Each structure stands twice: as C-alpha cells, then as structure tokens.
C-alpha cells in the first residue's frame, strides 16, 4: 500500500563504525573537508530532505563530546538526536530504529531514511528520488550501473553471464518505517545481521526494494585518495549547477561556515 505523499520522514546518519575498526583511532567521519567535518556535510544533506521531522545521528560512545562540539559549531540550530551505535552497522541501525520506535508506532513517522556519514556529497535530487520511490513502493535505494564487470570461473576463465543489470548500492536508503522496525525486531530474534539495511528489509518484511538512479558524485570516503576527490568535488560544487553546496550557499554562504581553525 503506497504511503501518503505527505509522509513524515526520519533521517538516520550512521557514524558509529566509520573507519574505527583498527585500534583506538579517530573516526574518519570527523575529518575536516572543505571547511567543515565530513559528518556535517552528510547531516546537512539529510536535514534538507523533504518532510523531515526528526534527525538522528548514530555515534560511538567515545565520540559523544566531539559530536556535540561539531554539531554546535557547524550545524547550529539544527536539532540532532544522538544515539550510541552498536558493534556492527546492523546493530547501529536497530538501535536508531528503537530510538524512533515510539513515533513509528504512533504513526508520526512514515519513512526512515538511512545514510552513511562517510557520504558527504550526496546531491539533493538523489535524496528526493529515494523518498519519492519509497513513498510509492515502500522501500528504495540509489544504485549506479556497474560497467566493465566480467564473471570469472574457478579456472580464471571468463564465465560469461549478463551483468548489465548489476548496480553498486549507495545511500541514503528509504524504507516504510513500521515495516523496517518490524524487520529489525524479527532479525534480532533470529540472530540475523545484514550487511546493509536493504538486506534485512528484503529478508524480514514484505517490502520490495526499488532501485533509483544514484549519482557518481555520491562517493563514500573509503580510500585515502577519496578524501582528495571529495575535496575537489566540493570545490567544484561551488559552481552554478550543483545542488550539494549551492543550496548551502543560498542560506549562509560558504564564507560563513563555522571555522575549524583560524
């Protein structure tokens, strides 16, 4: 059943396990990029989502003070609810959903939008596309066609096959809130931990996930060189045709960003 087109959306940004798998290192979501932290760019993308009613940031306990400081400096006036995540992405998502459970069960949230903190450059139209498709179909994720992929068998021979319909998955991903919460509760009682939100939704709910076009700029900062690419893209985004930063410029201007230093 389609969700009414005036759905209320909760945004969840995941920053609990972003590059912290080795030792007690710093979380890469807090690295500066183009004048503010990666995390702030990602939150800014989601806080501009249509019909957003709540914004949740999933953090690790050790980052609580830093998160509060960054939010106060770089997103002043934005109400962001902090939730401590778990050991895995799946567990972090489940904790965020349980945090929202009251509103979901009372019908005050229709859709949940889940986004990686390490994707700071998501264009606004990708967010809109995902929400529109999820309102219509119940669940939607952005995907990019995979090019130049061939299957190889055990003997390193080309195995053929049709790969034209393969996609790489991006975020944000949007889901009907009640179904997603029920899916995570069912998965928890089964001991299942999916690698991403869509995997759990498909396995434990009636939701069929629709893939909408993603965007090449919507990179996830994973490799060291991604930092340089993301910085260049942010610089380029000050041009007239980009929605990532242009909208930000329209409100307070790049020059008006809060300082990291200086």
């Amino acid at each position, binding site marked *: 059943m389609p969700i009414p087109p005036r759905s209320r959306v909760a945004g969840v940004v995941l920053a609990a396990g972003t*590059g*912290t*798998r*080795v*030792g007690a*290192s*710093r*979380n*890469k979501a807090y*690295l*500066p*990029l*183009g*004048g503010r932290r990666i995390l702030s760019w990602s939150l800014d993308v989601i806080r501009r989502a249509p019909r957003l009613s709540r914004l949740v940031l999933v953090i690790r306990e050790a980052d609580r003070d830093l998160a509060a400081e960054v939010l106060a400096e770089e997103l*002043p006036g934005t109400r962001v609810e902090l939730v401590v995540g778990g050991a895995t992405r799946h567990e972090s998502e489940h904790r965020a959903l349980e945090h929202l459970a009251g509103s979901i069960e009372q019908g005050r949230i229709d859709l949940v939008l889940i986004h990686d903190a390490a994707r700071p450059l998501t264009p606004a139209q990708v967010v809109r596309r995902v929400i529109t498709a999820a309102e219509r179909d119940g669940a939607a994720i952005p995907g990019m066609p995979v090019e130049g992929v061939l299957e190889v068998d055990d003997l390193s021979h080309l195995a053929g096959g049709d790969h034209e319909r393969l996609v790489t998955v991006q975020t944000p991903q949007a889901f009907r809130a009640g179904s997603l919460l029920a899916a995570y509760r069912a998965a928890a009682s089964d001991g299942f931990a999916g690698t991403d939100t869509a995997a759990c939704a498909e396995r434990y709910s009636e939701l069929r996930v629709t893939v909408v076009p993603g965007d090449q700029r919507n990179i996830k*900062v*994973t*490799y*060291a*060189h*991604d*930092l*340089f690419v993301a*910085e260049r893209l942010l610089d380029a985004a000050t041009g007239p045709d980009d929605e990532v930063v242009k909208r930000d410029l329209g409100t307070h201007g*790049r*020059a*008006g960003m*809060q*300082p*990291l*230093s*200086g």
Partner: protein
Amino acid sequence: MVVLACSHCRAEHLHEVTYAGRVLASTVCSNCGWELAKDPAALRRAWITDMERRVRTKPLRMLRSAVAHPVTFARALPGAVLVKPAQMTNEWRVLHGRRAD
C-alpha cells in the same frame, strides 16, 4: 590518525592525514608508507584562497561566537590568541613540505 583503505597495500590501515589549515595536504599509510600529497604549488594556492576566506570572515565569526556563547568566548579568547603563532607555524611547515608538529 584515522583508518582509511590504502590503495597500495589494499587493506584498511591507520593513516596520518595532514592539513595546511583547512586544506587537505597529504595522507600517509602507516602500514606501507604510501603517501598521497597535493602538488606543493597547488597546495599553496589552495591555502592562500582559504586563508583569504578565513581572514575575511574572521570578524563575523568572532562576533557570532561572542553573541551565542559570551562566557565561553571570553574564556577561550586568550588561549586562542596564544596558540595562533604555533598554528600558523605548523601551517607554514606543511606548506613547505615538512611535517606538522
């Protein structure tokens, strides 16, 4: 130090990420030593552009901070002034190819 994937040793390892002010300067993989760095001339150009922006917006940023949190601002100001020379020295070192302290 932050965990990033290294395109040279193809695994996640701690990386040292260096900035000249707010401008990304270099990354070094702690496992294999693979370094990615901006061309020094490009780094200096980017730093100058960013520095102009920082200087231009400084009065407004200070004013906003003083209005929003006057007590915190007043308490932090002396320390911020004292560490500024060290900050600038570090930025200068990075711009000229040396590691920040």
